[in-house]
């Protein structure tokens, strides 16, 4: 591969990793606080749609981004209310959020723009544009968010309480921390990051919204989270790996590889999921989720 090909491949890998990084870190915030989130996909869709719709209506990318974050966080707040306040089953709530995200975006989009749920293609000023090495601010921001996540998680009071809420919420409660507040905050950050993830899809990568445009990325992010064993640095690395796989699949589609021949694209598509299963089954060293993840906390 020539030098420029390598650079172009890396550029594609970075772009394709970006929504995964945001979504994976979103899941990390939530799950480290003890709230399993299989509803990343739904919140991403909400963010992608709101971002594109508002950017299309206002022509302003900044307002679009804000709307993406607001929509996703609204959904997260509803999810958080049921999960944290009502002790609702977190997996069920996550599935519900996915349904709501898929349904509401398509429905509102169809009603607003009469284009079958799509938003109009966005003009340049309503998009997040690349400015350096073909990369845009959201991509660079993803690295920043990973660093900030690691810092908050391991170096701050809030991070310590968040980890405690995910491992042993009773201990946090008994020590005078608020499990509720911690989990609500974590779910809110999760919503924020899902919003950015969705915004990256519709404002930076696709210049508009299409129904179901997340296409399982929320679940890939979940897979990456397991793969990263719920650690921020590893999450970043795993998402880059998965993005790289995607970029490789795009470049290698139909092209024969030495020794292997033509690899079906589906094999690339299934690879992250397969790797996660193999890891989870402890063939590569176990991945232990936060001990209290999935358990609603109630004081005795």
């Amino acid at each position: 591969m020539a030098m420029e090909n390598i650079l172009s491949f890396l550029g594609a890998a970075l772009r394709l990793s970006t929504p995964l990084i945001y979504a994976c870190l979103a899941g990390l915030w939530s799950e480290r606080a003890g709230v399993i989130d299989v509803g990343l996909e739904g919140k991403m869709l909400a963010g992608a749609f709101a971002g594109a719709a508002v950017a299309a209506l206002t022509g302003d990318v900044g307002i679009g981004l804000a709307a993406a974050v607001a929509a996703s966080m609204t959904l997260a707040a509803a999810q958080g209310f049921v999960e944290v306040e009502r002790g609702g089953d977190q997996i069920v709530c996550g599935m519900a959020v996915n349904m709501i995200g898929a349904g509401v975006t398509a429905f509102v989009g169809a009603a607003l723009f009469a284009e079958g749920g799509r938003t109009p293609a966005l003009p340049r000023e309503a998009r997040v544009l690349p400015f350096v090495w073909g990369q845009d601010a959201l991509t660079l921001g993803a690295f920043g968010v990973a660093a900030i996540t690691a810092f908050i998680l391991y170096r701050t009071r809030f991070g310590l309480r968040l980890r405690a809420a995910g491992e042993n919420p009773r201990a946090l409660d008994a020590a005078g921390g608020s499990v509720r507040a911690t989990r609500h905050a974590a779910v809110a950050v999760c919503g924020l990051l899902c919003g950015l993830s969705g915004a990256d899809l519709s404002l930076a990568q696709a210049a508009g919204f299409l129904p179901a445009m997340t296409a399982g990325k929320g679940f890939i992010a979940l897979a990456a989270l397991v793969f990263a064993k719920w650690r921020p640095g590893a999450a970043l690395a795993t998402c880059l790996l998965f993005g790289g796989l995607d970029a490789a699949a795009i470049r290698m589609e139909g092209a024969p590889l030495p020794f292997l021949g033509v690899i079906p694209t589906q094999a690339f598509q299934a690879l992250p999921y397969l790797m996660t299963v193999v890891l989870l089954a402890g063939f590569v060293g176990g991945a232990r989720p936060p001990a209290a993840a999935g358990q609603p906390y109630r004081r005795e």
Partner: protein
Amino acid sequence: MPALGAPPALRVFGVTKRFGAVVANKDISLDVARGEIHAIVGENGAGKSTLMSILMGMVTPDAGEIFVDGVRARIRSPRDAAALGLGMVHQHFMLVDTLDVLDNVMLGAEGGALLAAGRKRARARLADLSRAHGLSVDPDAIVGDLPVGLRQRVEILKALARDARIIILDEPTAALTPDEANDLGLLMRWLAADGASILFITHKLNEALAVADRISVLRAGAVVATHAAAATDARELARAMVGRDVDNALSRGDGPPGRTLLEARDLTARGADGRARLSGVSLSLRAGEIVGVAGVAGHGQSELIEVLAAMRRMESGALALDGEPVDAAVYDPARARALGVAHVPEDRSRHGIVGEFPAAGNAILGRHRDRALGRRLLDPGAIRARCADLMERWDVRPRAPDTPVGRFSGGNQQKLVFAREIEAGPAILLVGQPTRGVDIGAIEAIHRRLLALRDAGKAILLVSVELDEIFALSDRILVMHEGRIVGERATASTDRREIGLLMAGVVERAA
């Protein structure tokens, strides 16, 4: 001793708490002076833990007031409690296993939004405390890797590190060896001498008498007596706890034991954590005898009973039932039952029952393969009838086969488990902690039944942490220490002192 004039460090006044129909705390009033160790004793369910939870802001009382240093305190959360100088060492440790000691100590009192400064301060504080009280723990150790005794030390350090002046300990000695318990007593004295006030919950009256300045007795949610430790004794306390003289007189037949029904040789097994828990245990059990197994919790008794009941795999060793060798490879709980081994598990709620199932379902748990319950399919009518019959014979209340068993009281749950296991007509009965969490009436009933079974020629292995129970029921006593049987005594020819020494691992001095 309460200093005259000064207000008590802690005053509880008129605290009442109901859980539905249960009055857990009934108009409780109580003082703890500065520098005083105040013990609280009472039966299971008397309301001790509830009172402590109220003090720590984990439970909101229905009525009553709390004063700290004479000032009325509103404690709505553990944070409020900590701010008032209250600290608690919970019976079930409130520690985050994946964090290191330092982080656990800091949690909730981090001293700033960033951890770095707080960690430095906490490290220094731990060093101070270690020097002052001999409480040394590696601050960088991961808590999940520490043994129980050290974890409890971390809990205590947590309270001390945030300058708790009123320290509550809920059954702190339950998991400790006698030596460790002794050390803890010394520490409590130290702290009290230093001006701390200590509330100390225990089921062991002798412990309370040895360590406390004053002792309050709770019964059915109310304080029924408060005595100076020097002015009372165990007998008086027990009477206050139960409301009548405790009559331990049990009658037993005196026929000689029959043939050997269970014979174990050189059993070894590991615990759930992979550590060796049984090392070369041999024992035999004969028809018509009760063999008690004494020991400090965690020295292999649980594993022994689990191996015999086939719930835990033996790593090596041999087992014979009624003279027939058992193939360890195929020995599982179902097979054990089929071979006439019944098992009353020590952890009732985890193993013995399924709380959300109706009593009827629980009445056939593990016995569901019985063809009498239906040939091909299970017959719901037969199951209810079986349950009703068991309830009748064992006086399980209420007689409600369709009620989820989790709603029954602990004593009645235990009676149902006993009924299920015993009425199946086993030759061998393995019993773990038969009266844990069980009220005094049920205890008497269960003890009588066990003796009757013995007299009827069954072989019974009894594991209990309660020495009184062991002495009251056993014909022979085995003492376990660190996974070995370190002594065997006929009950008639030994005493509590000797057994206690054996339990502590002091082997031959007693011989």
